[in-house]
């Protein structure tokens, strides 16, 4: 390079820099405003509706109606029992498995992680349908086998009961606990355990006094998510609670939209759920107190795994048995249903049929639209949601603008809003000008974005905390703007967290039913709604075919996302 071209180059660069305003502040502020609108608008409408009557006058009558009518208080009590049981069951079952996978020499640890992910990918409503096939009191395959074996007239397990519903929901919420606890265990520095070992603590003693207490926050966080999931799920209760003869808050809220719709009551009925959530978050903070759970310094290093010795094989068998509940058994049941000519038909050649496959892929006109919509929405939401969560977690982790704490609250708030209620809020917000989005995919995109934001945000925020601010400062002092730094330095460092967040959203969207059921229209139907409609009329065969296809596609996309980003082979939901 000659001196002249060098000079020109420098000149251009200087001009370029002078001509370029720092775009970072406007972009960040715009993000914050967008977030405030995204979440604030539907919530505001809900509050307005909860506090007005049909003619629009301000009133508290909605709440008094709810509080005095056992048709509303009973579902609330049922829901509380359901949530506590699910949270406890998920924590009790998933934490030991996470420990076995992360800290012992259990055989097939990687596979078990992948299988746990598979049960995470399974939509809870699909699991509920599969468990109907398995454990309906009379026709359930397992109950029939039980009767055949024992001659007992009573079923082994009746899925159409509150315990049945608890069981099914726990099956599909325990992966949350598993992922959180396993990641926490992975991150405990080996030093902390070695320090106990050298002082004379056996491996078991170390596990009990050091390892487990250190993951208590993760277990609590996981149980909390399980609790909130159980509280806000719609599909599983809708499928199992009606035959069992009870309501949960979400099915009750849904029934309030039967003709004539009572959105005011529905909005008011959602309020106890919000209150419960806030109380839980406060309790969680109390419980943890001032113990510093963020691990100080420490070399991460490969942890020493506890040798299970003779317990290795029994432990593996136990884990596989547990995994058969959300996975092996339900998918076997679905596979059977997909080729049986009628529900409960014996598995014999004369009752085998391709009819359902043919129906789903050739006759059923909604299949293609639904697959397409689901895929577009899942990809779009995952990508936009990750970007949004990235921006918000940057703002909050680095306290980049005033009010970042409020943003943090906003980004977490949607966990407390049941999808069905949010669906109502969005419906109220986006059916009027200037944003008449109802009937388009956009409203579903907004709904999914809102619903999935908290998970992605939590994931990315913890990833951010792992990246030292100096790494960013090093880039900025060299002349890179905030956005450039975010794109060139931070994002690559956060890659595994970003991919995990993306996958979380993608899977979440595919699983989502409760908001979609309020917001879909003919052209914007998604798979979960199609499956729900098919279940309403008892078309098990078609559901089975659609459900398994949906699982395969989800797996393919998640696997591809992991592969293309080079984070690792196969499906992995880890990081941060």
């Amino acid at each position, binding site marked *: 390079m000659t001196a002249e071209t060098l000079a020109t180059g420098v000149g251009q660069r200087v001009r370029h820099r002078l001509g370029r305003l720092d775009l970072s502040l406007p972009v960040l502020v715009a993000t914050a405003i967008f977030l405030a609108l995204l979440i604030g608008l539907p919530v505001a409408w809900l509050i307005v509706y909860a506090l007005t009557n049909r003619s629009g006058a301000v009133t508290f009558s909605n709440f008094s109606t709810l509080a005095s009518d056992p048709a509303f208080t009973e579902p609330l009590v049922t829901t509380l029992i359901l949530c506590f049981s699910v949270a406890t069951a998920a924590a009790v079952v998933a934490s030991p498995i996470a420990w076995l996978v992360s800290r012992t020499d259990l055989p097939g640890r990687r596979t078990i992680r992948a299988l746990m992910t598979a049960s995470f990918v399974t939509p809870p409503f699909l699991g509920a349908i599969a468990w109907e096939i398995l454990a309906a009191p009379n026709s359930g395959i397992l109950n029939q086998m039980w009767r055949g074996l024992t001659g007992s007239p009573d079923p082994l397990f009746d899925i159409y009961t509150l315990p049945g519903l608890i069981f099914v929901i726990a099956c599909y919420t325990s992966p949350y606990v598993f992922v959180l606890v396993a990641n926490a265990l992975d991150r405990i520095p080996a030093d902390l355990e070695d320090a106990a070992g050298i002082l004379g603590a056996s491996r078991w003693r170390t596990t009990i006094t050091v390892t487990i207490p250190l993951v208590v926050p993760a277990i609590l966080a996981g149980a909390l998510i399980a609790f909130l999931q159980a509280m806000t799920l719609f599909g599983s209760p809708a499928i199992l609670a*009606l*035959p069992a003869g009870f309501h949960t808050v979400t099915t009750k809220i849904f029934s309030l939209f039967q*003709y004539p719709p009572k959105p005011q009551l529905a909005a008011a009925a959602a309020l106890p759920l919000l209150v419960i959530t806030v109380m839980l978050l406060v309790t969680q903070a109390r419980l943890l107190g001032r113990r510093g759970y963020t691990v100080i310094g420490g070399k991460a290093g490969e942890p020493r795994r506890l040798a299970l010795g003779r317990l290795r094989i029994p432990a593996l068998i136990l884990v596989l048995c547990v995994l058969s509940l959300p996975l092996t058994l339900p998918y076997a049941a679905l596979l059977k249903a997909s080729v049986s000519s009628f*529900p409960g038909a014996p598995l014999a050649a*004369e009752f085998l049929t391709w009819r359902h496959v043919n129906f789903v892929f050739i006759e059923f006109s909604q299949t293609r639209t639904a697959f397409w919509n689901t895929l577009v929405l899942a990809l779009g939401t995952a990508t936009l949601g990750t970007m949004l969560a990235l921006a918000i977690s940057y703002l909050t982790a680095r306290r980049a603008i005033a009010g970042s704490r409020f943003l943090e609250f906003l980004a977490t708030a949607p966990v407390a809003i049941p999808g069905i209620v949010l669906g109502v809020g969005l419906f109220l917000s986006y059916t009027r000008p200037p944003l008449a989005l109802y009937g388009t995919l956009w409203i579903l995109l907004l709904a999914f974005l809102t619903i999935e934001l908290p998970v992605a945000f939590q994931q990315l925020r913890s990833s951010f905390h792992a990246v030292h601010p100096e790494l960013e400062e090093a880039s900025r002092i060299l002349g890179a703007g905030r956005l450039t730094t975010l794109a060139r330095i931070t994002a690559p460092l956060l890659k595994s967290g970003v991919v995990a967040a993306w996958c979380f959203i993608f899977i979440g969207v595919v699983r989502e039913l409760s908001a979609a059921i309020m917001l879909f229209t003919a052209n914007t139907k998604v798979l979960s709604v199609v499956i729900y409609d098919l279940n309403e009329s008892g078309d098990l065969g078609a559901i089975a075919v659609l459900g398994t296809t949906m699982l395969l596609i989800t797996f393919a996309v998640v696997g591809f996302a992991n592969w293309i980003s080079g984070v690792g082979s196969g499906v992995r939901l880890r990081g941060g």
Partner: protein
Amino acid sequence: MRLRDILTTGFAALFALAGTALAQPAPTSITPDLIAAAKKEGKVVYYTAVDVKVAEQIAKAFEEKYPGIKVQVERSGAERVFQRIGQEYSSKIYNVDTVNSSDAAHFVHWKREGWLAPVVPEDVAKHYAPAYKDPDGMHAAWRITLAPIAYNTKLVTAAEAPKSYADLLDPKWSGKIVKAHPGYSGTILTQTFQVSRDIGWGYFEKLAGQRVMQVQSATDPPNKVVSGERPIMSDGTEYNVLLLKQTGAPIEVVYPAEGTPLVVGPSAVMKNAPNPNAARLFHIWSFTVEAQQKMVDIGALRSAHPGVKEPAGRKPLSEIKLMKDDPAEVDKQSEELKARYTRNFKT
């Protein structure tokens, strides 16, 4: 022909004549112009509560007959169809071209709201009894659904099987009955109305004591009976029972001694249909003998078209004691019926 039938037919003819003369719009037939205009639109959106497989087959037959016009089938329970359309129309979204539901009361509501377009298919004008069509030509009975009792033939013998609603209250059927929900199914709402009118609400109060399994759609109880989940269904759609029986499933229908609830499932064209010509074409065609026969053959439904032949082995409509349809009354009582039902069955 018995005297009563003669009288009925006579009155019907009289009413038909009067209707035509007074208000009913002129019948529309399928003209090349209509076909051309419909083809230009290219598709028709069909909201329906009929079993999804029947709906898809009808759609396919139409697409074969009029290539280039796609039928988009949107199937869900009648109450959900109703809720959807209400939700969409209240936010000025006009998706639906033509609608079919199992709850005739909904058409009373839509007509009152002015959402329906008057279209009288040629066949309806010529062949349909007045009980099966709207005097103002807004809708007509596209299908007739019965809501009988049924049982699993492997678990219950024909001799044991209940013959009437009264039989269902026998303690031996406790925990063995499945039924659908009027909050989700129009068929069952109508059934609930007719049974409570003819036998009294006491029946439901006693039935609630029988530990019944509650499902949503009227099409689901037959599946639960076939799978053996419950050996008896106290209500559900006849055509699903018949269709399952055809596949070799162990199920048999019982027309209760007190009378079988009759559920008229009208069809109509929406006034704000985005594809008005295709909507009319589909609507008119769907009332032809050809389409109605298909609906009966494939869907095992009942038709109000006198030209349709009942397939062998099915009990003809005329031999079944039927309850009387009264959509206007269902429309009036629906909210109260549902609330009462929810109190009674706790779901």
